[in-house]
């Protein structure tokens, strides 16, 4: 293989790498994609909600054969305390449309499917191959990679790093600083299998309809984090994640936290009788805009989680991965037509295109949220969910207390629980971070 040259090498076969490899191969480029797992997806974890729009822009007819579980017709947001939840549910018949907007998927199956499409588009995909080094010429331009299969240097005009959150190759080559514990979340997840009819009854669904539940509150023990339950055809994805820095300070184990969530009185009946067939863990880069590293240089581009492209507020990651992968590929295709040498200056087109797209606009919009949460986790994920649940209970319980008195008690509980200054300060800080 040492003599072979490629137009582009893609490191990693997650959604970002697959979108990049597919788009370039489809345009006729000679593409090599390297994946360390036995098969694409064997190392990857997601909730998982798939946002159709991002995939449609890469593979317009994906609905014909992609392994989709359910299309989402209902979104639930729950705020928990120890015994209750306050919820906001949105369900709409409009989501039963010809081309649904969101689906649940199972990543190992989805990644395999995507990879098959990449091969069909003409790329060479090598699994069980870990890239060990980026190789540069004397001027520092990246000219190829080395792998643990031996066989020396594999040359390419440009290398797309789609290596995910643990981007060892980019880190070691000094392209990007190491992740900080306060900028990554550790998520653990289980796959709970149940008969299809049981899921449909429990969640009020028919056919391929699906529900997703996002949860925050006392289940994260005062740490910045969220939990989720997503309906697949014959299984439920159940998970919880918190910032690594918070986990380090807390005494809890991630699996005890997951167990506590599963045993919450509002969650337990949903999982009753299920068979757990997998327990997975993965990091999510949640530091936001301020943690996005340099994403282009001489002969290289960074896409997806490796570039910290996750919008934690909206639980979006795979769509940003596919979009950055596609934009990187389109940049390479365009520059090739212009006979570019893929210098940093030329590849800046990638950054520019992203800056003008929803990707960077959204990342920028929430750039202050991580800091806001970092300083306020105990209140946002503990005090407020408690106060709000207590207020709801006080309000709905009919016990001979006058309504005006109930209102007074609720207001007093907020003032006591957080203090007037704290309340106003939090509202102000949140409004400023959200803007």
């Amino acid at each position: 293989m040492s003599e072979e040259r490629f137009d582009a090498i893609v490191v990693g076969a997650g959604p970002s790498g697959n979108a990049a490899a597919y788009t370039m191969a489809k345009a006729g480029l000679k593409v090599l994609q390297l994946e360390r797992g036995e098969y694409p997806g064997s190392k990857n974890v997601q909730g998982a909600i798939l946002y159709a729009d991002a995939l449609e822009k890469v593979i317009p007819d994906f609905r014909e054969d992609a392994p989709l579980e359910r299309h989402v017709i209902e979104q639930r947001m729950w705020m928990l305390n120890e015994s209750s939840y306050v919820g906001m549910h949105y369900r709409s018949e409009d989501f039963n449309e010809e081309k649904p907007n969101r689906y649940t998927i199972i990543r190992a199956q989805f990644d395999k499917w995507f990879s098959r499409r990449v091969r069909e588009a003409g790329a060479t995909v090598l699994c069980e191959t870990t890239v060990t080094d980026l190789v540069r010429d004397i001027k520092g331009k990246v000219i190829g990679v080395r792998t643990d299969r031996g066989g020396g240097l594999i040359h390419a005009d440009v290398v797309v790093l789609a290596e995910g959150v643990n981007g060892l190759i980019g880190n070691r080559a000094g392209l990007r600083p190491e992740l900080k514990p306060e900028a990554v979340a550790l998520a653990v997840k289980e796959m709970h299998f149940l008969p299809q009819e049981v899921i449909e009854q429990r969640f009020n669904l028919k056919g391929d309809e699906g529900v997703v539940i996002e949860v925050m509150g006392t289940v994260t023990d005062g740490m910045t984090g969220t939990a989720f339950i997503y309906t697949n055809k014959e299984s439920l994805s159940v998970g919880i994640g918190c910032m690594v820095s918070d986990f380090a300070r807390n005494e809890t184990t991630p699996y005890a936290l997951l167990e506590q969530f599963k045993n919450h009185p509002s969650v337990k009946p949903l999982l009753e009788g299920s068979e757990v067939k997998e327990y997975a863990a993965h990091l999510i880069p949640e530091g936001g805009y301020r943690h996005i590293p340099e994403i282009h240089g001489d002969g290289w581009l960074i896409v997806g989680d490796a570039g910290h492209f996750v919008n934690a507020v909206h639980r979006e990651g795979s769509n940003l991965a596919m979009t950055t992968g596609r934009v990187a590929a389109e940049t390479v295709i365009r520059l090739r037509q212009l006979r570019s040498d893929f210098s940093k200056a030329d590849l800046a087109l990638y950054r520019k295109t992203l800056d003008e797209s929803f990707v960077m606009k959204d990342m920028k919009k929430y750039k202050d949220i991580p800091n806001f949460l970092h300083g306020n986790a105990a209140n946002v994920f503990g005090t407020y969910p408690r106060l709000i649940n207590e207020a709801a209970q006080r309000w709905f319980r009919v016990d001979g207390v006058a309504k005006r008195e109930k209102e007074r008690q609720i207001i007093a509980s907020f003032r006591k629980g957080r203090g007037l200054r704290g309340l106003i300060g939090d509202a102000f800080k949140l409004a400023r971070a959200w803007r």
Partner: protein
Amino acid sequence: MTTVVKVEEKLYVNRYLVDAGRPHIKVRPHETPSAALVALTHVCPAGCYTTNDRGQVEVAPDGCMECGTCRVLTADSGEVEWNYPRGGYGVLFKFG
């Protein structure tokens, strides 16, 4: 929190291809572990880290899910040497 959970029971349903004799994670020899290294005994989602009777932290990465948490937490102290397993080895998620 009172819930006692055996992580071995969770890992039991997972699939792995263990690269026998070639652990991909090593703790560097140390006298006294840093707070971050000690934290791994409860932060690692696979329970790979334990403290021995001399107070040093040890790792047995057979159940490792390659999440990278231990790598990130000890990046500053440099106490953990972390690599991916050889291509094809390690955890094999059926669902992810």
